[in-house]
Structure formats: structure tokens, C-alpha cells
């Protein structure tokens, strides 16, 4: 097969799939929200509201494009493009399946750019480029709410990069590679998914990932009650649509990463065990397993969103710096100790140690942590 | 000093003051309700609303002997030692019964009554009436009777106070109105064939304390509580009645007189009251128009925008003065201009060139002065401010060139250009007179309505009517009065004072009050008005005038809280010197 054709097909496939996925995720999200609130959600366009995304898309395209008078036009236009580009680019090294046999050639790996040794770093690096779009959008709008939203967002993203990075180091240690395919294979070979072995790391990763995707309860950058719409207050029509797209792309990225790093990727005992070579059937099963896992993670994120209230900004920062980073460090320590002193195949002990660390943290919280100590009282009351 | 005790409080009344008990109590801050009494009419004591208990205090012993019966306060003079009780149960009971009696055959159609809101019966019933009406009369529709050109009588609403009848007998003198029938059948009527249509008939509508007499002009038009009053001055003759413009949503709904002992007392004539179409006439001039020199047909007018149009006018005037000399340019000051505007225009004329001819605009005269029985006069001179404009003219060029003299100058070819300010509310110039101006090479007409002269003009500058501008007018006797704007100018027109101050190149908004101050400093005749003009005006000729004094009740607890047909403090009049503490001019 042509050396450029294969990636091209994969790119087209992934981009189309993610775009379609985003469109329908919006519908799913609205449906989920509606059901949780005893409503029915969109149900007028097509059966069960299935054509709603098409209507939404048409609406985005047809709506009036406004650029505020005092806006910095160039940056204003660049912001949504850059954020969308960054979000899409992150998919380059994320595997969405295992291998597909190809007659007369090596099997094809289901990653746009396979065998990138810094795969995970690449995802993180590109993913955090998105913050530029947010800041630019907030700045260029010439609107104080937008600017505040942009500032909040940058502070939040920068803060949560740290626990995010810390949490995955454990995974790297155990898998011995930054390459996402290898991380999956490591889990598949051992039969242990890393979330069971490093529960602390998994927790930190989920929380930070949620914050990185700016999902509720961490959606401070765009919280309507305080900031109108946050950094995209002034954006209309398709430019706003691009921001919304990017947000869901981030969500998908985080879900993929969660599955690949902690939930075994395409591995499922019995159905999709580790194998060097797979046939067509095996390949399809693995793609399905991976994507269903991914979908479940997304559903979980949605469930969270419609269940929990938003944090206050100080709480948000406290969680990053005072809770998540220490937890990430503890996780790292435990993993490093295991890696240094334990037999590489002894996952049971590692898991026990990991859960002991969780228990230790709970114990610490029970004994020493005093949330709510800084209660405000009315003036004059002691 | 006479000491009078009202409800236990002593008040002092000057010896030469002749007050009745209503007025004395008013000074003490006690309101005695009344219908039939009016300070401008004779006292009949027929309504019995004002009954109070009175008595005399023995100066030496301090002993008080009360009269056994209630007496009408309107008819009882307040003498030294008079003791008045206005809130005893007996007095209350009487007021109560009077109210009940009045409502026995009253239609209670307040919702459709135009007086509702300023009706004394309404107000008094709330203050002094029964909680509920005991008579089982349902509201009904009042009979309606046509009394004259301007007056409608709603027969069943009448409380028979006879104020209107006395007015036609004592003030206007026509005696058109009379009471027919007796007792509870008594009604107001006119003799067949003798309707009430003298030129003061509108006043009876104001006098009527209830909704019986209604002005046809205002009938069904607007509810009184929607209207804002604006104190102004009538410009239809040189009496210069003090008036109030009643305005709602930028529309002039009616004009009522305002009490002013120096000009009009409580009254005004029907001309000033009803003939105010010019204020919102659809044909009002509303843009600066420029006629190109070659088309003499009048079809060649084109609209100019304000600042540029005015610049063009200024350019044209200056050009004439520069080309043929200042003395070939005439600036005509209309007697409808306020003093401030006349002053600004004259100043402007003199800035073009010191030789510019200043002339007095046409002074419209209709017939002879018409004096009514009470002395109220409709003057033949149908303009508000001849005296004021003349004083300004005298200051700027010693002699007054009047309209005929100006026409002569025009016809003799002495003039090349003229700026004619007008602002007449009615047609004021005919074709023949206007034709004389055709020979001018520049004619600027500053007017509010189209006229033969405006059609001949090279530039037409739209002005505003009296209701749309602030400013002062000097009436026939030298009384300067202040009028306040009630309406915004029609779209496209600018307040005259603003136009003149723009022409003068002054910056900012035209403020009539500060221009008057400036004028008072420059023209000695106006010196007394430097600190503003009090409500009752200032007589610049004699130097003295009467100022109505506000009583303890002021305007707040007066029987008519919202609108009152006659001025603010109308219960008493007394001459207060301008330097003394005068609460109104304050």
C-alpha cells in the first residue's frame, strides 16, 4: 500500500468519525440531560430527534456572523480555528483499535501516526494548545466577561496539567513506554488494567481530565451565571460552533486516553485477549470494544455533568494544588517503589499496595483534613 | 393685629386684611371644605359645605361664647377674637350630610366624567363623606345640555353652587346663565336663543367644582391625572394672562388660567384658551428652506440641514452687509419674540454691522380693547411682548422703527436684505404687503406657519410657538412674566433662542434664564429681573406688584390636590415687596 495512502485514509476516517460523533454526542448529551430532568429532550426533528444535529449544523451555518466593534478581528477569527485545529490534531497518535491484517503487507495499526514514541506527550502537548484558542477568544472579544472566562480557563488548564502529568507517570513506569499502543499492549499482556493497579492515579487522571476538558463540575471558564458565556460570549454562528466542537473533541480525547491508559484499551478478557496477530474478526471486535469503552466513559462524564454542582473557583484551585497534586505524588511514589522492588509480573501485590495507598489517604483525611473550616460569618456575630 | 383661634391655635391677622374664616383657617393650616365660595365672586353661602362652629373670645376675661348654630365660614369675617372650631362632631356631621345630600341624585359616573381627578365632590367625599352611599340609586348617565359654543352642562352632576351664574353676572357681565326651577329640581340653564358664548365663557368650566360644566374642547380627550402642568404666559393679547399648559405625551390638551393678581386674576379669555391650533398645526414650518435666486415661482425651495442651513443664512446676511453696507440690511424683531430672543437677535444684528437697521415687527391690532364687567380686558393689541421688544430696540438704536416705517424703507429701495422674525399664531400678512419685499435681494423669514411672506423668502427658518419655548414677555402694563416650555418643538424646528445663539456663534444650549440675567445687566429696563421672574411677574414700569402668598396649607392639602383651575395659592392676595420674604419668588 502506498505510504501516504494509508495515513490519508485513516485521517479521513478519524476526522469524519469524530465530527459525526461530536454532532451526535450533543444530541446524546441533550437527551441524557433531559431524561435526568424528567423531560424528553429534542424529539421533533426526525424520529427520536435523530436529525437534530443536522438542524443544529444548518442553524450554525445560517446564523448571522457578528464581530463586536472593539474586537481584534484577526485574533477573533483565529481563536476558534486554532482551538478546533488543536483538538483535532490530538487524535494523531491515539489508537482507536488494534491491528488490521493486510494481505501482502504488514498489518495496519489503527492509529493515524503509529509507532510515535512520544505519543502520550504529543497528545498532552497538542491538547494544551487549545488553551490558546480560549485565551485568544477571550481577549479578542473586547468583553470583560469573555476576558475573565479566558483568564479563568488558562489558570485552570495550567493548574490541572500538573496532576494530569503526574498521574500518568505511574502508567508509564508500568508500561515502560510513552507509546499509547504499547501501553495498551502492556495491559493486555498482563491482564491487569492499570486502573485496578493504580486507583489513585486513575482518580487523579479522571478528575484532571475532566477539568482539562472543562466539563462540569469544572466548567468555570464558561459558567453562565457569572460570565454570561465565558470566553465565547461574543461568538456567533459557526465560530461559536467551532468552540462547541472543540469542547466535545476534548471530551472524546480524554475518554480515549482514559480507556487507553487505564481501562485496557481494546483488551477484554475472553473476547479480545492479547494476541500478536489478529484476523479481520478480531480486529473489528477490538475496535468495537475500545470504542464502546470510550462511549461508556463519555456517558459517565455526562452523568456527572448533570448530577453535580459546579465548584467555586477557589475550591477548583484548592483541589488541583492541595489534593490532586499530592495524590499524584503519592501514586508516583507507590508506583516507583513497586517498580524498583517488586517482581515485574507481581501485579497483585502492586494492586494491594495501590489500594493501601487509597486507604492511607482516606485515613489521613479522616484524621487531619478539616474542610469547611473557613466558614464566613455575618459581621458582628462571634 | 387681630388674633383668631382656629381649632385651638392662635393666628395673627393684619388689621387691614379682610379675611373670611375659610382664609383665616387656611393660614392656620386647617382646610375647610367649600364649594360655592370663590375669592373672585360674591359670597352667597348656598352650598353649606363650609359650616363651622364660631364664637367670640372676650378680650378681657378670656371667656369664649360660642354661637348655638353652625355658620358658613365663607360668610363669616375673621375678626379679632373670633374662635373657629372646624373639627367638632357637629361640623363633621354637617359635612357628612351635605355630601350625602349632593350625592342623592348624582349620577356617580366618575369613570366617564372629565372632571374626575380634579373634582371637589370626589375629593371631599373621600375626606368628609360617608363610607357607603345609603341611597339606593344606581349610577346612571347624566343628562347633557348645550350651553354655548364652548360649554356643555351635565345637568345631573351639578351641585348648584351657582358659581357659574355669579360669574356671568359679576365678571363677564353677560348674565347668560341662570337657575331654573326650585329645590331639588333646580338646574342651570340659559334662556332659549341666548347661549353662553361671550369671549370668557371658558372660565365657567374651571369654576365648576364638579363635572357639570365641561369644556367641549377637552371633552373626552384625556384624563386629568395624565397631564403635567407647565406655567406659561398667554401670547394672544398684550394682557398676558398667566396660564398653565396641560400637556400629556407631548400633546397640548388644554390651557387654563393661573391666578395672577397683576395680570388676569383668575380668568382668561376664550381666544387664548381655545385657539391654539397653531401649536401643533400640521403645516408648521419644519426645516430650513432655501429658494434659489432664479426661480421666483416659489417651487424652487430645497431643504437644508440645520447647521449648514444656518451657516448659509449667516453667510448671506453678512454678504449683503459687506456688499452694500450695514444700513441696507434690516432685522425685524417680532413682538412675539421673548425678551431674551429679541435681545439675542438684536445683538446678532449688531455683530453683522453696527449700522444694521433694527425694526419692530408688525403689531397685530384687532378692533378695540374689550373690557368685561370685572375689569378683565382683552386688548386690541394681539401680541404679548411689544413693550419688551421696544425697550430692547431703544437700547440698541435709540429710536423704534415700526412696521409701517420699515415698509416705507423697503418700498423706497433703501434696503437690500431683511431678516424678518415672525412667530405669529395666525395669518398676519397679506399678499399686497408681502409683495413689497420682492425687491429685496435677500429675505430671510423666521416663522412658524407658512405665509405669503415666507413664500417670497430666500431662506425660511422654522421657529417654535410659545408653548415650546422658555422666556419672558412684558405685557401692556410693563409686567414681565416668565413662560416655561411644555412641548418639545415640532420635528425639524429649533427653539428660536437656540437659533439666535447659534447665529451669534455662542456655544452650547440656549438657557433663557441666563440670557435674561445677561439682558438685565445690559438693558437697565430689565434690571429688576436679573434674579429671575417670580410666578406673579414683576412690573418693570411701576416697580411694584402684588404677590400671592402661600398659606400654611400651601398647595398640598388644598381640596384639589392634582389640578386646580386657578393658580397655586389663590386664597389670598397681598402686596409683598420684592425684597421681603416672598415664598413664591424665593
Amino acid at each position, binding site marked *: 500500500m502506498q505510504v501516504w495512502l494509508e495515513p490519508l485514509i485513516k485521517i479521513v476516517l478519524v476526522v469524519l468519525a469524530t465530527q459525526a460523533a461530536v454532532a451526535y454526542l450533543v444530541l446524546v448529551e441533550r437527551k441524557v440531560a433531559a*431524561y*435526568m430532568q424528567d423531560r424528553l429532550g429534542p424529539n421533533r426533528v426526525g424520529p427520536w430527534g435523530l436529525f437534530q444535529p443536522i438542524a443544529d449544523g444548518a442553524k450554525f451555518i445560517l446564523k448571522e456572523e457578528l464581530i463586536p466593534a472593539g474586537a481584534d478581528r484577526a485574533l477573533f477569527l483565529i481563536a476558534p480555528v486554532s482551538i478546533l485545529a488543536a483538538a483535532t490534531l490530538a487524535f494523531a497518535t491515539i489508537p482507536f483499535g488494534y491491528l488490521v491484517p493486510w494481505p501482502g503487507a504488514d498489518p495496519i495499526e489503527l492509529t493515524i501516526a503509529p509507532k510515535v514514541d512520544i505519543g502520550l506527550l504529543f497528545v498532552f502537548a497538542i491538547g494544551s494548545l487549545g488553551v490558546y484558542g480560549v485565551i485568544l477568544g477571550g481577549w479578542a472579544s473586547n468583553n470583560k466577561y469573555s476576558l475573565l472566562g479566558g483568564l479563568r480557563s488558562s489558570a485552570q488548564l495550567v493548574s490541572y496539567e500538573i496532576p494530569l502529568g503526574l498521574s500518568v507517570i505511574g502508567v508509564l513506569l508500568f508500561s515502560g513506554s510513552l507509546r499509547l499502543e504499547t501501553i495498551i499492549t502492556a495491559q493486555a499482556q498482563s491482564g491487569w488494567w492499570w486502573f485496578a493497579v493504580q486507583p489513585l492515579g486513575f482518580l487523579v487522571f479522571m478528575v484532571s481530565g475532566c477539568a482539562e476538558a472543562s466539563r462540569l463540575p469544572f466548567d468555570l471558564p464558561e459558567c453562565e451565571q457569572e460570565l454570561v458565556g465565558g470566553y465565547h460570549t461574543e461568538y456567533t454562528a459557526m465560530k461559536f460552533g467551532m468552540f462547541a466542537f472543540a469542547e466535545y473533541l476534548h471530551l472524546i480525547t480524554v475518554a480515549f486516553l482514559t480507556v487507553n491508559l487505564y481501562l485496557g484499551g481494546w483488551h477484554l478478557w475472553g473476547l479480545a485477549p492479547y494476541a500478536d496477530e489478529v484476523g479481520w474478526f478480531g480486529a473489528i471486535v477490538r475496535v468495537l470494544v475500545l470504542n464502546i469503552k470510550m462511549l461508556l466513559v463519555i456517558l459517565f462524564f455526562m*452523568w456527572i455533568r448533570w*448530577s453535580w454542582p459546579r465548584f467555586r473557583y477557589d475550591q477548583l484551585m484548592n483541589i488541583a494544588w492541595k489534593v490532586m497534586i499530592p495524590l499524584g505524588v503519592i501514586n508516583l511514589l507507590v508506583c516507583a517503589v513497586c517498580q524498583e522492588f517488586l517482581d515485574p509480573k507481581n501485579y497483585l501485590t502492586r494492586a494491594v499496595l495501590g489500594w493501601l495507598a487509597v486507604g492511607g489517604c482516606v485515613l489521613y483525611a479522616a484524621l487531619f483534613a478539616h474542610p469547611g473550616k473557613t466558614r464566613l460569618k455575618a459581621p458582628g*456575630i462571634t | 393685629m387681630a388674633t383668631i383661634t382656629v381649632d385651638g391655635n392662635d393666628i395673627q391677622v393684619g388689621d387691614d386684611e379682610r379675611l373670611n374664616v375659610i382664609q383665616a383657617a387656611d393660614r392656620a393650616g386647617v382646610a375647610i371644605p367649600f364649594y360655592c365660595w370663590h375669592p373672585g365672586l360674591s359670597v352667597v353661602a348656598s352650598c353649606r359645605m363650609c359650616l363651622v362652629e364660631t364664637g367670640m373670645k372676650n378680650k378681657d376675661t378670656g371667656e369664649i361664647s360660642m354661637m348655638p348654630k353652625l355658620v358658613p365660614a365663607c360668610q363669616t369675617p375673621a375678626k379679632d377674637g373670633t374662635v373657629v372650631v372646624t373639627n367638632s362632631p357637629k361640623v363633621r356631621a354637617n359635612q357628612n350630610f351635605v355630601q350625602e345630600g349632593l350625592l342623592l341624585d348624582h349620577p356617580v359616573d366618575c369613570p366617564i366624567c372629565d372632571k374626575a381627578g380634579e373634582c371637589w365632590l370626589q375629593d371631599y367625599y373621600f375626606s368628609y363623606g360617608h363610607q357607603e352611599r345609603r341611597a339606593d340609586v344606581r349610577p346612571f348617565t347624566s343628562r347633557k345640555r348645550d350651553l354655548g359654543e364652548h360649554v356643555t352642562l351635565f345637568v345631573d352632576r351639578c351641585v348648584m353652587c351657582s358659581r357659574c351664574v355669579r360669574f356671568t353676572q359679576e365678571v363677564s357681565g353677560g348674565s347668560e346663565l341662570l337657575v331654573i326651577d326650585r329645590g331639588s329640581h333646580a338646574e342651570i340653564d340659559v334662556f332659549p336663543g341666548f347661549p353662553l358664548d361671550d369671549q370668557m365663557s371658558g372660565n365657567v368650566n374651571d369654576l365648576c367644582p364638579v363635572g357639570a360644566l365641561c369644556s367641549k374642547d377637552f371633552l373626552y380627550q384625556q384624563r386629568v391625572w*395624565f397631564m403635567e402642568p407647565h406655567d406659561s404666559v398667554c401670547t394672544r393679547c398684550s394682557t398676558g394672562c398667566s396660564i398653565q399648559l396641560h400637556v400629556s405625551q407631548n400633546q397640548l390638551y388644554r390651557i387654563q388660567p393661573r391666578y395672577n393678581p397683576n395680570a388676569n386674576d383668575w380668568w382668561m379669555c376664550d381666544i387664548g384658551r381655545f385657539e391654539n391650533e397653531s401649536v401643533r398645526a400640521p403645516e408648521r414650518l419644519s426645516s430650513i428652506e432655501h429658494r434659489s435666486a432664479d426661480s421666483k415661482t416659489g417651487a424652487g425651495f430645497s431643504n437644508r440641514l440645520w447647521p449648514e442651513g444656518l451657516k448659509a443664512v449667516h453667510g448671506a446676511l453678512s454678504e449683503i452687509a459687506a456688499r452694500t453696507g450695514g444700513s441696507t440690511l434690516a432685522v425685524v424683531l417680532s413682538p412675539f419674540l421673548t425678551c431674551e430672543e429679541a435681545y439675542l437677535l438684536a445683538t446678532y444684528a449688531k455683530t453683522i454691522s453696527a449700522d444694521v437697521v433694527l425694526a419692530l415687527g408688525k403689531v397685530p391690532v384687532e378692533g378695540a380693547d374689550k373690557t368685561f364687567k370685572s375689569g378683565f380686558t382683552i386688548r386690541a393689541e394681539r401680541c404679548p411682548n411689544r413693550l419688551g421688544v421696544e425697550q430692547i430696540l431703544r437700547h440698541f438704536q435709540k429710536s423704534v422703527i415700526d412696521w409701517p416705517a420699515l415698509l416705507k424703507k423697503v418700498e423706497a429701495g433703501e434696503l437690500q436684505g431683511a431678516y424678518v422674525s415672525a412667530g405669529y399664531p395666525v395669518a398676519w400678512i397679506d399678499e399686497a404687503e408681502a409683495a413689497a419685499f420682492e425687491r429685496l435681494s435677500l429675505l430671510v423669514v423666521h416663522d412658524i406657519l407658512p405665509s405669503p411672506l415666507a413664500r417670497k423668502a430666500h431662506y425660511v427658518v422654522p421657529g417654535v410657538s410659545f408653548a415650546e419655548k422658555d422666556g419672558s414677555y412684558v405685557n401692556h402694563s410693563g409686567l414681565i412674566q416668565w413662560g416655561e416650555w411644555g412641548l418639545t418643538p415640532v420635528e425639524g424646528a429649533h427653539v428660536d433662542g437656540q437659533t439666535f445663539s447659534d447665529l451669534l456663534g455662542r456655544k452650547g444650549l440656549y438657557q433663557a434664564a441666563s440670557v435674561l440675567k445677561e439682558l438685565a445687566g445690559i438693558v437697565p429696563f430689565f434690571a429688576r429681573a436679573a434674579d429671575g421672574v417670580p410666578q406673579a411677574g414683576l412690573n418693570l414700569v411701576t416697580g411694584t406688584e402684588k404677590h400671592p402668598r402661600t398659606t400654611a396649607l400651601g398647595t398640598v392639602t388644598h381640596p384639589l390636590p392634582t389640578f386646580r383651575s386657578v393658580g397655586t395659592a389663590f386664597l389670598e392676595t397681598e402686596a409683598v415687596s420684592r425684597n421681603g420674604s416672598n415664598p413664591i419668588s424665593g
Partner: protein
Amino acid sequence: MQPDSKQIKWVDEPKLGLAGRLYLTPLIDGLSLTARHFFRTARGEGFTRQFPEERPLFGNPLIYRGVHRLNKDEQGRVKCVACFLCATACPAHCIDIIGTESPWADREKYPQSFVIDELRCIFCGMCEEACPVDAIELTSLFDLTGASREEMVFDKEKLLSVYDQTCDLEPMRSRGPAAHSGPPPGKDH
């Protein structure tokens, strides 16, 4: 009221247990609550009504405050007497009336024009309260829509037609016709 007033009862924050301090129970509570509702709706027990197909039911349409109507009397004439009291009471200043002499012998004044700007109206019902002859009423028509602002400015004819449309469903809340007694109705001269 001062913060130290005796009338104020200050409530202390509830003490959180260990699970609470770890956010654990609240978070799980939240999740389980939404999950319960999710499945309940999925079973078809949601509350949504399919509006245009399913009309809502009013408990008492007489007290609903929807579009206005101008009532007619027994002879089919507009009941309003153009007293402007509704316009006076209206806090939104959306009623504009032009009154004139009525063409009927038994009535004095009537509205030549009666205009309500339904877009400005806040449906407070003050006009209904104010009307002395029960001429203006708010109906239970609630789905008021229009394609332009002009369309939403209801004039007398339109308001009267709302009466025709709703009079069967919602009888007039009249306190009886304005009866006439006293001197015979009609105009002098």
C-alpha cells in the same frame, strides 16, 4: 434588621462525616438521583407534554391571565366606557385609548380606538381589576404569537374578536349589567 437581632436564627452548617468530607456520599447521592430519574423517564414516566398536540388543562380558566378581550354588552356593543382607568392602572403603559362621544343614547362615552400593545403587557391583570364596568378581561388564551410587532398591537376589533372566540368557554365575570335608575337616560335638548 440588624445581624444581631434576636429574630434571626442562625443555622450552623451540618457537620460532615468522613464520607461527606471526602465528597463521597454527596457525589454518589447525586449520581444515583439523576440515574433514578433517567430510568424513570426512559420507562416513559417523564412529565413532558407534547404541547401543540396535547393542550394543557387549566384548573380554572377564569383566573388565568392571558390575552385580553374587550367584552360586549347584551346588544353586542363594546362594554368599555373609555374611562382610561385600565390605562391608569397599567404598570406597563401599554393601553392606549381614544375616547369619544358614544353614538348610543344610553351611553355617554365610548372608545373610538382601544389599543393594547401585547408585547409591552406584563399580564398582571391590573387593567381587569381597575375596570369599573368589567369591560376588559384577561382570557386563558396563552399561546400568543405573531410574526411582527405590529401584529401584536391589538386594536379594538381584534380585542372584541377575542371575546367572540372565548365567550363560550369563559363567561364574563361581570357583576351584572350596569343598571340604570334615576332620571331617564338620554340627552337633553
